[in-house]
């Protein structure tokens, strides 16, 4: 099966399920160094995403991403809503109206996403935010694509890098977002936004892998 619009829909339905399963964990992580709503914010948003995707007509991967993006922007709120929304809007724009995706397209989408998040949130790598998962993911995707990996291969590399990046936020002191108010007390905790970024990419990679390779 190709990495096309309908497999993109299936992949994001999978993400919605993963978010629901990890809602409490994300709430707990955010309670530790934020305000305890990250899991609930994403749960609320992805419930609507799942509803809308289920009712969606066949579309290009870019159109699917755009729909997910606007839904998240209008339902998630908080810092994560606009940031994930921007990430996906930029990814959608990067993909244009391609009907199927190869590894290069995936890498380009991820690069656009991470640039978008940085432009909106003005966080740098090391600030203990989702940027610490997303930037390594985009970089790993680029290398994999240059090596000629397929879409699912590129996504798998990106997910692995996001996992490492998220894990590495544990020891960081937050300098952006709500956790920054904690100063040094923020160290020793996993950043919730980095964790949810990891979850999303891992779920997407798993879907791509099980769905088989694109062109």
């Amino acid at each position, binding site marked *: 099966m190709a990495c096309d619009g309908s497999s993109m829909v299936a992949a994001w339905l999978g993400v919605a399920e993963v978010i629901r399963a990890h809602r409490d964990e994300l*709430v*707990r992580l955010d*309670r530790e160094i*934020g*305000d*305890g*709503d990250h899991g*609930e*914010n994403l749960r*609320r948003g992805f419930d609507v995403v799942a509803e809308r995707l289920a009712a969606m007509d066949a579309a290009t991967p870019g159109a699917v991403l755009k729909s997910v993006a606007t839904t998240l*922007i*209008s*339902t*998630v*709120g*908080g*810092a*994560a*809503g*606009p*940031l994930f*929304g921007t990430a996906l809007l930029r990814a959608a724009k990067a993909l244009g109206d391609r009907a199927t995706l190869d590894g290069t397209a995936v890498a380009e989408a991820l690069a656009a996403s991470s640039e978008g998040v940085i432009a*909106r*949130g003005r966080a740098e790598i090391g600030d203990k935010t989702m940027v610490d998962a997303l930037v390594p993911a985009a970089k790993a995707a680029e290398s994999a694509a240059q090596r000629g990996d397929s879409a699912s291969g590129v996504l798998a590399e990106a997910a692995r890098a996001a996992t490492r990046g998220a894990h590495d936020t544990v020891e960081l002191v937050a*300098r*952006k*977002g*709500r956790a*920054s*108010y*904690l100063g040094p*007390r923020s160290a020793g905790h996993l950043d919730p936004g980095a964790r949810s970024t990891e979850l999303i990419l891992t779920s997407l990679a798993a879907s791509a892998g099980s769905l088989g390779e694109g062109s």
Partner: protein
Amino acid sequence: MKKIINDPAAVVTEALYGMAQAHPELRVQHTDPAYIVRADAPIPDRVAIVSGGGSGHEPLHGGFVGPGMLTAACPGPVFTSPTPDQVQAAVAAAHGGAGVLLLVKNYTGDVLNFETAAELIEAEGIDVRTVVIDDDVAVRDSLFTAGRRGVAGTLLVEKIVGAAAEAGADLDTCERLARKVVDSVRSMGLALAPCTVPHSGEPSFVLAEDEIEIGIGIHGEPGRERTRIAPAQDLVRTLLTPVLEDLPFTAGDRVLLFTNSMGGTPLIELYLAHGSAVALLNERGFLVERSLVGPYVTSLEMQGISLTLLRLDDELAELWDAPVSTPALRWGR
């Protein structure tokens, strides 16, 4: 968690429904996209003052909608900023043709969502300005942080700008006044006991029997340090000292003192703290010309207080005194 709620996910919607029942003078859209607007809006040729933020800080912001204060407010989920859709819907209901001023507390989520909203509103051809409020001196401002938080000082911005808009000031004037108040107001708070967010079910932090958190944020974010509970007069000094140093305020300044409850602290303690703060300010040569005491910018049932100081001049004092008629703040006329 013991709360008077039904479904944690429906708290805001159901509370807004109750608010609508209690306040026929407001138009309350209690389902998504939720907003609260004066019943008589849009008012032709009057600047619309729109604010909003996470719920759980009641009466902020919805309780400040009405003649002389906000034109509309957007309540997000508890402690979560509203979405751009809500802001757009509120502005659509509020805009009378003379432009819109968005008043935003300085949190990443609020700033980003209002930023997106402002772009969309501007694209509709509406003149829209945004002023970000960051009065909390507990958090040091720096290029490498999210900056100072917007807390109880927000009420003062909303009241003063609302009075100007009511009197027919144009958008430039409203924006200038908002920045002037932001430049002249500082706050700091402390907590004795945490709150519990309905969807989380766990206290936002844990304090020992005799411990308090100095510099608490209005979402239970931590502040400068944890110390032992102390007599009220010492606590008041602990809060006022950084407030006075930050602006800095100088002896002889005319000030407004706002003693705010975080939600669960009773009025008797608020008044006691207020008296103590007035006495300290008098001692240091300040002229406390206006007072406000009450639970106005809260964090659910959190126990604690914040002290807010605004430097007054004739312009601000006059706008403060101007009539206001909202669910939570009412005087004059």
